[in-house]
């Protein structure tokens, strides 16, 4: 059997055993689910009750960017960390950047690019009061970038390449500066001034959207894109 073949999915005795163990696990979990009582503490009322003070109208955005903004900060850090990890491991990009220029893709791209930028921006703005936000907007922009790469519109000499690293870190840097800055100015860590919390949240969200979008594109490429590196010779270094 060649090693590259798909898994042999026959139910061997070992797999039967694993299956039995998993059935036991699920049984145990299900039994616990059935005995769950009404929650003792209602975080919901607290979250909804403080909505006005949070500066945004959408309760999920309030949790993400105000009550639990520290979680979201670390989550943006995870995004950057994963990307640095991939660049450390994969070195050169695995997916060929130069794919054939197909007229269909390029036309599609030309038609949709402005639309996607506008809808990304709208989602970002909408996040304050309705369903939307930095992650949704970043995902739309990321998808746009993936199409961009697939249509070979990314050229190694592009002036934008020098902006890759700054764009990757701007989201986390904004969180860090605003969160830490508020504290050094006498507030609590991540405590926005109550009167213009919304402005600060939008500022952070905009920076985060840029970083999320570009990170998703870079995750798709799966390695250091040619010439995206400021450190000459680094990406070509294989040892």
């Amino acid at each position, binding site marked *: 059997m060649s090693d590259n073949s798909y898994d042999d999915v026959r139910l061997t005795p070992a797999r039967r055993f694993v299956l039995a163990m998993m059935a036991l696990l699920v049984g145990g979990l299900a039994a*616990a689910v059935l*005995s769950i009582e009404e929650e003792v503490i209602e975080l919901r009322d607290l979250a909804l009750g403080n909505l006005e003070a949070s500066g945004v109208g959408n309760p999920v955005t309030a949790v993400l960017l105000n009550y639990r*903004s520290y979680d979201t900060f670390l989550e943006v850090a*995870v995004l950057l*960390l994963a990307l640095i990890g991939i660049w450390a491991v994969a070195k050169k990009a695995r997916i060929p950047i130069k794919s054939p220029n197909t007229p269909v893709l390029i036309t599609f791209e030309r038609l949709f690019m402005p639309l996607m930028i506008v809808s990304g921006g709208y989602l970002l703005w909408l996040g304050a009061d309705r369903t939307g936000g930095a992650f949704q907007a970043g995902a739309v922009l990321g998808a746009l970038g993936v199409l961009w790469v697939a249509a070979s519109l990314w050229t190694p000499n592009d002036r934008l390449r020098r902006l890759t690293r700054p764009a990757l870190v701007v989201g986390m840097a904004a969180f860090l500066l605003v969160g830490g800055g508020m504290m050094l100015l006498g507030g609590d860590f991540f405590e926005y001034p109550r009167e213009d919390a919304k402005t600060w949240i939008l500022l952070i969200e905009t920076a985060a959207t840029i970083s999320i979008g570009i990170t998703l594109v870079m995750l798709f490429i799966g390695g250091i894109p040619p010439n995206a590196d400021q450190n000459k010779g680094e990406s070509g270094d294989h040892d």
Partner: protein
Amino acid sequence: MILESEIWLALVVLLPLAGAILTFMAPRYAPQIGTVSGVIVFGAVVALTLAVVESDATRLTVGGWGAPLGIDLVADGLSTLMLLMTAVVGLAITAYAVGYFGESSAHKRAYFWPLWLFLWASMNALFLSGDVFNLYVTLELLSLAAVALTALVGQPAAVQAAMRYMLVGLAGSLMYLMGVAFLYAEIGVLDIMALASVSEATPPVFVSAALITAGLMMKTALFPLHFWLPPAHANAAAPVSALLSALVVKGSFYILLRLWLTVFAPLGDTFAPYVLSALGIGAIIWGSIQALRQPSIKLLVAYSTVAQLGYLFLLIPLLMDDGADRQAVLSGIVYFMIAHAMAKSAAFLSAGNILHALGNDRITSIIGMSRKMPLTITAFALAGISLVALPPSAGFIAKWLLLNEAIDGGQWLLVVVIIAGGLLAAGYVMRVVGPAFRQVADDQLAVANPVVPASMAWSALGLAILAIVLGFTGVYLLDVLDIGVVILTGGEA
């Protein structure tokens, strides 16, 4: 203090993250920026420690909301000692890495620093977090950084080990998160103290404890879920091995400790603590026997970690026993963590020096090397003394504390295991130290003139000396541990 003490809680997380961003932005200057960041972070942790010692345990309400709506960061005696342990080992590893990566490729040099600073930040964030979901995010940060660092050397064995580490780590994180989901569905909050105030021994809480404990056991590499650890720790670059063995596994164990002392305290009188203790016994015996059989120094040291982690779980039944002196048991366990961190990082850094100077780390290659590499061999020997727990080392004090509590609790089986574990450790440490001190003629040495950069030799020796010296300063450390650590009893509702 110029700044209020709460500010240091945020700074010990923010500063290494800022350093990570800068080293990523300017890869050419990564070693310089990384070193400066390391010194600054160390300073911030010392400032936090002084603030906590001076003015009691501190709580930082992030965003000004306060738990349970917001997330609280908490620095009590336990988290402060963990931060300090990380900072001391971290500073030594920073110094070591300057020399170690100075001679490696530009790629490794550029990526080690941001990943290491991310790892440091995630350790600090983990020790301070007072919220079970936030702990999940810090755990994931920690795993991703650790996995990427493991793979950094790029050799097939290391990449495969990193892949396995990743899979086990992710499975462990997801089990932890499932446990958090059950806690939320049953109780409705995420703050540890809020959970603890209403937690009872109901089926969902029990299932949650089982999931969280199993997930964290995987990440801590408790026997028999240790299989991923030796290849990962042995194949990584030397400073990374030291980080993984001395610090990273302690992160997940710390969460286990914290949750069992609070949220899961009502389950203290079930069979669960005894299961952990039994697995601890298995770890000590199995890990030591494997360490006695390994042909290379790094694998030997990695299996020694499997064995030493067993001691952390050994006394969990006494830790959860209202009849025992639980604060004293906790002291023993925490002291053991700190002693092991110093000794194990020193041992891995010395092994790295040996590998660097001789080109391999086979035990047969180091015959007679004590004359040629005195600093490195002395470092390994001192670390070994602490691992074997000979007086007056930190390892001795730690085992003495554990032994006392085991005797007081009448746990004679544990007494036997602790003593037998020491003898086995003596066996595997002597497998390296014995040949190194053998007197042989120059032409019989594997390498005539082994060279170790000074920063690498001295940082290994510095940690090894600490592993001994901390044996004399135990009282001060244990005083810190008394600051504000909440230990709930099972009866309290």
